């Protein structure tokens, strides 16, 4: 449905998108996620035709656009939902939604699908943020685009509203059966709405996978950290597992073709999420509790291992371990841990 080949974007001398390749199937929702300034919004604008890339080909449903053959935004059939909603302030809700729609049934359909029937005659400035965003979505969908592009659609809304609205939007997109790219900087949002998640960093896509894979089997330390807290412990990998300061554990590799064999040992770093860990009050143990913070449902601990490494742990709120207490840190999760091959001179990011 959508395929992008070697897309490059420059702002003056700044190279914001580098050799981006992406393929999206019909009806799929792809979450494009990454930290602020990673180039995700620029990539989205280039797909919409609102920004001229310096190089690359974008093919929407068979229609190719390149620099030499630039297709203007209005000919791409790519609807866009903006961060600031971009509702036409001089038109009411119905006129906004029906901006260039010839069949009024589409307008009615999306007004009712998104619960906006009561606001038909309202002017945009009288609506709340969530209502505005629903109008913006209804407007895009009523124009029946082949591709829907959402540029941080929820970032201007209250946190409480976000979770509810993201499910509503996902539901509406699926109902319309439209292919969509949803740009966000919020990893939880990305995992919740994306059929697949593409993680961008400094202009490059570093991983495209299902949300589960991105979280459980990140292919780099960057992706691992992006999707959640975690500590990295040094270890020696062998056929039986990875030997770290807190014991031997089975592991999988995600960054490289390393396969442990009987006669090779290798240095690795093992990703340990806070909820993989249990702390048992015990002397001598293998660690000392440094800090304890109450989080409501859970308590968050930072412990220092005797090896010098620090480890994060998140336990039930019921039991409180005081700082300075000696504990034994153990891995309680049964699934294999993710290990990253430690190459020589590799920056440990």
């Amino acid at each position: 449905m959508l395929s992008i080949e070697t897309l490059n974007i420059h702002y003056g001398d700044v190279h914001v998108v580098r050799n981006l390749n992406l393929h999206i199937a019909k009806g799929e929702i792809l979450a494009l996620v990454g930290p602020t300034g990673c180039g995700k919004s620029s990539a989205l604008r280039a797909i919409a035709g609102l920004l001229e890339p310096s190089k690359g080909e974008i093919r929407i449903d068979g229609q190719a656009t390149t620099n030499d053959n630039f297709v203007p935004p209005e000919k791409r059939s790519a609807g866009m939902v903006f961060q600031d909603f971009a509702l036409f302030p001089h038109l009411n809700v119905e006129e906004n939604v029906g901006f260039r729609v010839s069949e009024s049934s589409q307008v009615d359909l999306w007004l009712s699908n998104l619960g906006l029937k009561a606001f038909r005659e309202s002017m945009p400035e009288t609506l709340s943020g969530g209502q505005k965003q629903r109008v913006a979505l209804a407007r895009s969908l009523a124009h029946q685009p082949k591709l829907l592009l959402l540029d941080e659609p929820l970032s201007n809304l209250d946190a409480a509203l976000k979770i509810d609205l993201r499910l509503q939007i996902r539901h509406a997109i699926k109902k319309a059966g439209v292919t969509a790219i949803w740009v966000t900087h919020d990893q939880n949002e990305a995992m919740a709405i994306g059929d697949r998640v593409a993680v961008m960093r400094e202009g490059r896509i570093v991983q495209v996978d299902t949300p589960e894979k991105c979280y459980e089997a990140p292919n780099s330390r960057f992706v691992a950290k992006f999707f959640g807290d975690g500590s990295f412990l040094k270890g020696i990998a062998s056929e039986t597992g990875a030997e770290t300061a807190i014991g031997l554990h089975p592991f999988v590799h995600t960054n490289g073709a390393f396969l442990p064999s009987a006669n090779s040992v290798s240095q690795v770093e093992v990703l340990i999420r806070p909820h993989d860990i249990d702390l048992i009050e015990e002397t001598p143990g293998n660690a000392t509790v440094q800090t304890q913070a109450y989080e409501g449902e859970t308590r968050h601990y930072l412990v220092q291992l005797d090896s010098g490494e620090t480890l994060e742990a998140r336990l039930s709120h019921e039991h409180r371990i005081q700082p300075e207490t000696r504990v034994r840190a153990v891995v309680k999760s049964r699934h294999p841990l993710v290990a990253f091959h430690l190459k020589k001179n590799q920056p440990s990011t």
Partner: protein
Amino acid sequence: MQRYSFAKRWRLHVPIAPIVLLALSPIVVLIALATQEPLEFGSRNWRILGNTVGLTALTVLGAVAIGAPLAFATTCLKLRRAGLVLAMLVFPLAVPSYIGAFAYFAATGPGGEIENLFGIAPPEVRGLFGTAWVMTLYTFPFVVLSVRASLLRLDAGLVESGRTLGLTPLGTLSHVIFPRIRGGIASGALLVALYTLSDFATPAILGFDTFTRAIYVEYNAFGLSRAAWLSLQLLLLVLVVLTFESRAKTVRENPGRTLRWNPLPATKFCIFISTTLIWISSVGLPFVLFFIWIKREGVRSFEPSILLHSVVPAGLAAFCAVIVALPLAQAASYGGRTENWMLRLTSFGFGIPGIVMGTALVYVGLHLPWMYQTTAMLVLGYVLRFLPLATGSLREGLDRLENSLSAAARSLGASPFETFRRVKLPLIMPAALSGAALIFLEAMRELPLTLLLRPTGMETLTTRLWQVYEAGYFGDAAIPGLLLIFTSFIAMLLFIRTERLLRLAPEAET
């Protein structure tokens, strides 16, 4: 701000470049014209320079001396009917200063209207002090408005904390309030200076030799080259003032309560007396004179065609200026450095005094006989001079318009033209209309440019007034004078509403 590039930037520049060139052409013409003869700077030139600088300095001093205290009184003192007092103090802006000059010219001195009425002749209002007095009367409201704006931004908490630290009320005035409103005083003073430098008719009527008057004298004596040389000198002075203006900073205060003090009865009395006196001498005098004349001589001498001659070119100018300003404002709202400079260059036209613009265009007209003394030439003059009012107004309108709106329209399938017609145009219409109205009213009351560029025999309200002054049939001035005051009054309301008074130059790059 996010930028969306639909077109390569140079495509934007193409329609603008000729406008910028056209806006700069008066200066090029003046240089070419001035250098046709050897440039001299003789004793007469020195005297004109001294007169101009002296008049400007005195007017600025007078305007600040009257404007700043009264601004403080109407903003920070608890007065009954403070709104009325403020309105009275701003009203002189609705009287073009040349009408004031005309009224003083007709009323004072031996044989003036005051002697006719009361039998005693007050001293003539002429020369440096007379001209400065009249200029001050009609420009001090600029200071009132700009100082008032800074006082409104001043948080009363500052003054109160000054008091808790041991300052007397007078001490806070000099140590807390004055330093915060210095910027406001400066920007008001610079506006007054700009107005004084460009004003032609006031010194001309009161017989004081400033640059503007001397340029007109040279022009009438067919000394176009001399006139151009004097014009360049005047432009240099204007440029100095504009440079200061672009540097004048107004302090951004955190919003807070406005200061409110209880005045002493004596203070109240002083405010009452001074406001009344100022109002009588600036607004009352011309009104009384005009009504006396109407009563004495009737309204027969007024030909309605004069009004038409004022309205048609002014209306055309307003329309054309908005059309021309649209691509300029559009380009500037993209916010690039080049575009900003282009806008700045075109806005220089507003700083060019009418008489200077007139001189340059007369010379252009002499080389383009099909343009010379046509309405088209007059309209061109108005457009070049008042274009910045339109670009400023439109730009404000465009800046309020989020970029994503056009992007949204485009991604919904609208072509660039449809986007303009259905999204941008309706949204900037109010700004375009207020810009056009402002230009219309300014052109209606513009005197020197009209005097120099109008088609032969075409009388407008302003040229009629000038003709009456030259011929001495004062009574005929009543109706045009009142109509001009009415026009200016509406212009003033628009001006104050958009607060453009305080921001003549376009905003610096963001």
